[in-house]
């Protein structure tokens, strides 16, 4: 039996509308009017114990809403969620015991107090047995360097230190399921990679199920075996990371501005092999995508400059937004089937 089962899950927010004017305000007191916002729209997926799933989508796609539904914070508008056989909203307490939750933007650490106080309190809240508590602390102490900040008030921690303490706090009760909502937001490269490393380790050693929302592509690349992608509340891809290789692989986009309209005839010469792909060429603008690990940026630029009258260029990392756009637009992405239950391929 899968650990998490989500079927036809829908969440509609009722957003109160503010009517303009004085009478409008008075009226809204008596008869408030609402606008319905469908944040999650009929999603289905199942997750097995021990999986590491990247739950991705652009801003506002409905990721956080899904996490809240899985945690039992919100009740679904329709459809159902089952986590370990329980309805997480109705059986909130029992569900809460076996999940750990990390919000990138919200802290659960006690702001004015030394880090240790948060852990004392959480130990009580989750009724963690003495032995587990010690083991976990020793474990985190090593990976997250918690000992170094143990007596430091939280408000004096650096962002990276705080995020590590945050993770340790969320895991102190050894939850079998861990949800992370944008945990690497705002962190530097080093801090990010440490967190990824730890998540991988934890999954390997303890078999923890990890569900990670992010819009950093590297997070999913390095941590997750499986991707669930949503867009405007709908599931658009579910499957192995490999299925998205074509788009994910090309992590860089080079936009060239030409002296004169070279026309589509010249541009393809740059993108001769698999390493560099032509995305767009219209008039004076040419867009190329390439994988940095296979060909270096200077090489691509040199190649382009050799055949095209380049006046200016911009180099940037491919962001999730454009990946989703490509997937959503059906740009040659096949349904993934890494887990034998690929769904994906949302309506074009």
């Amino acid at each position, binding site marked *: 039996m899968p650990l998490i089962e989500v079927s036809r899950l829908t969440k509609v*927010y*009722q957003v*109160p509308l503010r009517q303009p004017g004085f009478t409008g305000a008075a009226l809204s*007191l008596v008869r*408030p009017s609402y606008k319905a916002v469908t944040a999650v729209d009929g999603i289905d997926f199942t997750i097995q114990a021990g999986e590491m799933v990247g739950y991705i989508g652009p*801003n*506002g796609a409905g990721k*956080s809403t899904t996490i*809240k539904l899985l*945690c*039992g*914070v*919100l*009740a679904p508008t329709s459809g159902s969620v089952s986590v370990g056989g329980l309805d997480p909203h109705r059986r*909130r*307490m*029992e569900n*809460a*015991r076996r*999940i750990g*939750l990390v*919000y990138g*933007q*919200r802290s*659960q650490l*006690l*702001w*004015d*107090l030394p880090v240790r*106080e948060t852990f*004392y*309190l959480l130990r*009580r*809240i*989750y*009724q963690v047995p003495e032995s587990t508590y010690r083991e976990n602390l020793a474990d985190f102490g090593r990976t997250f360097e918690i000992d170094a900040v143990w007596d430091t008030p939280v408000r004096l921690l650096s962002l990276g230190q705080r995020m590590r303490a945050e993770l340790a706090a969320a895991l102190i009760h050894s939850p079998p399921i861990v949800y992370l909502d944008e945990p690497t937001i705002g962190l530097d490269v080093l801090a990010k990679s440490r967190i990824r490393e730890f998540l991988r380790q934890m999954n390997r050693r303890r078999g923890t199920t990890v569900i990670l929302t992010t819009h950093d592509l590297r997070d999913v690349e390095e941590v997750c075996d499986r991707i669930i992608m949503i867009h405007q509340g709908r599931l658009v891809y579910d499957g192995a990371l490999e299925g998205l290789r074509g788009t994910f692989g090309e992590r860089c986009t080079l936009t060239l501005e030409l002296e004169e309209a070279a026309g589509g005839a010249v541009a393809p010469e740059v993108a001769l092999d698999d390493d560099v792909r032509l995305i767009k060429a219209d008039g004076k603008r040419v867009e190329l995508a390439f994988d940095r690990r296979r060909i270096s940026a200077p090489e691509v630029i040199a190649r382009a400059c050799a055949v095209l009258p380049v006046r200016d260029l911009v180099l940037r990392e491919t962001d999730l937004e454009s990946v989703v756009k490509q997937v959503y637009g059906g740009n040659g992405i096949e349904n993934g089937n890494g887990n034998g239950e690929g769904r994906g391929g949302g309506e074009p």
Partner: protein
Amino acid sequence: MRTFGSYVGLYLCYLRVNWLALMAYPTEFWGNNLGNVAGNLLGIAAVGIVFGHVRAIGGWSFDQVLFLYALAMVARSLWHLFMVNCLNLPYYVQRGTLDRLMVRPVNILFQVYADYLDNDDWGEAVIGLVVLGTLSVRLGLVGVGPEVGLARSLTNVLWLAVIALSGTAIFAAIHLAANTTSFWLVQAGAVSQLVWQVDGFSRYPLNVYSRPLRFVLSWLLPFGFINFYPAHLFFGPSGVPEGGGLLWVARLTPLVAAAAFGLAYRFWQAGLDHYQGAGS
């Protein structure tokens, strides 16, 4: 399932972290309590100033009015010292921080109360207790001598404790209900602000108000059960303006308190089901 004992342990742990955090700002602690003491002495002084000119208000003597006043102070301060954070409920709802409490295996309201305590109301608690104690002796409710009697003293002390706790529950119920509106209203702080105004009614005996007001303050916002009705338990039929007729109402106080809190709690649960979190 969590046992009652584990809640006690958890609560002590919460007390510890809250008080540690408050101790990080010792000047605030002293400043707030100094202001609090002054404010409460002023309230008592205002009663005293008026009684400098009259012998009774609504048939109640100075000592009796002060007794009522002190009873409300004790209940209000107990509520304030341990349950004041429900006033922040609108912020929890609007900013979505209630999420954080909802993913923990602990009763949510318990967490709201324990999440933040302030230490600003010790002045009211101490002054209330001192005044209540002094007046209990002066009014002959409690005493060591033969004129009161040990049995009567003990009964009165017991009733006082029950009434104070019932009053705390009534304050808790009213403020919980008022702040639970924040699950539906965007500017819910306002309802709570209004409740504070109504609290002003509880400072004087209910029989000075008109019938409709009295009804509201007894059965809708039961401030009357914090001090006015319970007073009838102590002063005897000849000591109160309306005679012994209200004694049976006074005995209902613990029930009214339990019912009020029960209702408020149901309302709160309905609010939780309506909770939508905050947009990211």
